[in-house]
């Protein structure tokens, strides 16, 4: 598209104002479309027919360049004197506090799995996908196991992290925290009294969401675990035991093994 040359008469204030507004971005090569076309023609015309204005524009560009250099150098100097690591430590502390706080809140919640008779669709989705992985796993465990103690929930969560291959050293350091789960009113163990029990090993790379979905598909509910070997006991409705075993075994990448 060709624009006619801008005559001296047509060098009105509107064009001059527009050119001065666009000049900084034109100089940085950041204009496109109509703005770029306008500036190209305007500069061409100015250089050819308005030498005084052209000199002014050159001075403007020099001023911009000089100012930019000074400000960028000042920015480097300002940033260099900042306590970067202190800020980073403060940030990481906040992230850790967020996780701890979430654990405490989740640990106080009643059991919430689709297999539970008190399951509600609202409380079944309490963990946003934006929550940290460890938080989601810990929360899920707290809910699934009916944990009342954050410490207990965390101990269990640490063992699940082992199953996920994240922290193997916790295997032998945390078993004392695996308190018995039966006996409490409404506990998963008592709720599972009339249900069939399966021993399940989940795949190390399985996500909390994938495990939750696999269990929901068979009406399953974790009632204990993980054992020292990383095995979980899952309660399922007795009438569907065979199909549940078959379904869980077919969940490749989520379930490694299923035993009666």
């Amino acid at each position, binding site marked *: 598209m060709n624009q006619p040359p801008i005559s001296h008469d047509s060098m009105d204030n509107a064009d001059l104002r527009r050119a001065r507004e666009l000049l900084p971005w034109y100089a940085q090569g950041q204009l496109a479309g109509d703005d770029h076309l306008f500036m190209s023609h305007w500069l061409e015309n100015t250089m050819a027919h308005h030498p005084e204005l052209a000199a002014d524009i050159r*001075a403007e560009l020099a001023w*911009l360049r000089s100012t930019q250099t000074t400000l960028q150098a000042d920015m480097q100097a300002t940033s260099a004197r900042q*306590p970067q690591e202190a*800020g*980073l430590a*403060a940030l990481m502390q906040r*992230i850790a506090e967020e996780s701890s706080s979430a654990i405490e809140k989740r640990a106080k919640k009643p059991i919430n799995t689709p297999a539970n008779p008190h399951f509600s669709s609202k409380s079944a989705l309490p963990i946003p996908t934006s929550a940290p992985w460890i938080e989601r796993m810990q929360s899920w465990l707290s809910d699934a196991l009916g944990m009342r103690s954050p410490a207990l929930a965390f101990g269990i969560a640490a063992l699940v992290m082992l199953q996920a291959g994240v922290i193997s050293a916790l295997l032998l350091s945390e078993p004392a925290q695996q308190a018995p789960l039966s006996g409490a009113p409404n506990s998963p163990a008592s709720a599972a009294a009339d249900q069939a029990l399966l021993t399940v090993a989940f795949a190390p790379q399985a996500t909390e969401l994938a495990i939750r979905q696999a269990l929901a598909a068979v009406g399953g509910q974790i009632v204990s675990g993980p054992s020292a070997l990383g095995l979980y006991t899952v309660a399922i409705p007795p009438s569907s035991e065979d199909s549940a075993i078959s379904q869980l075994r077919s969940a490749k990448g989520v379930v490694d093994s299923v035993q009666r």
Partner: protein
Amino acid sequence: MSVSRPSDPSAVLSQDAEHAALLARIAARDAGSEAAMAQLYRALQGNVFAFVRRRLSLADDHEVQAVVVDTMYEVWRAAPQFAGGSQVKTWVLGIARHKLLDAVRKDPHAQRGYDDIADHAETLPDESADIINQLAEQQRAEWLAYCLDKLPEEQRESLHLLLVEGMSVEDIAQVQSCPGGTVKTRVFHAKAKLKSCLARWLKHEEPANMQAPVKAQKKEDWV
């Protein structure tokens, strides 16, 4: 510490791809998320600090740092919502702007209200184009910072994002949540006022409170 600001367009794209990859790792919320967050913090905290510092000219470094940490914490929380519609740096600076406005609401004295000293700048003959080149290097930086502080906040922000971050009209508009035309107008006026301020200083026409650049003065001197 380095500041994330490549000038080559291909380097900008490459750097943004690195930032986007870090953001994706953060959003994944897995074992590598916190390490990715630390990397992104190191990559962008200089940009965020400079941006916040330019606006909160009267806050001390610790107050500015607190806004930086607030900003990066929000980046951590909101990472899964990043849709890739802009450069990561633009997105982060947009968050920083919200955080610094929160800080201003809590402590209005953290930023200096401009005093209209250069509001008539556009009426002055534009004979100051090379003024800044006449200043000694150190003075130039100090007085430039001083004159920037005298600009209305949003004009100062626009000029900072243009000259320091090298942002496009569209990116600045995103950070400032305004139309592109507004950004152009802000920069137009900011340039004129900045030149006017520097010209006044050079001609020793500055008012009494222009005896020293802002860096040499304490917060209470301005309130």
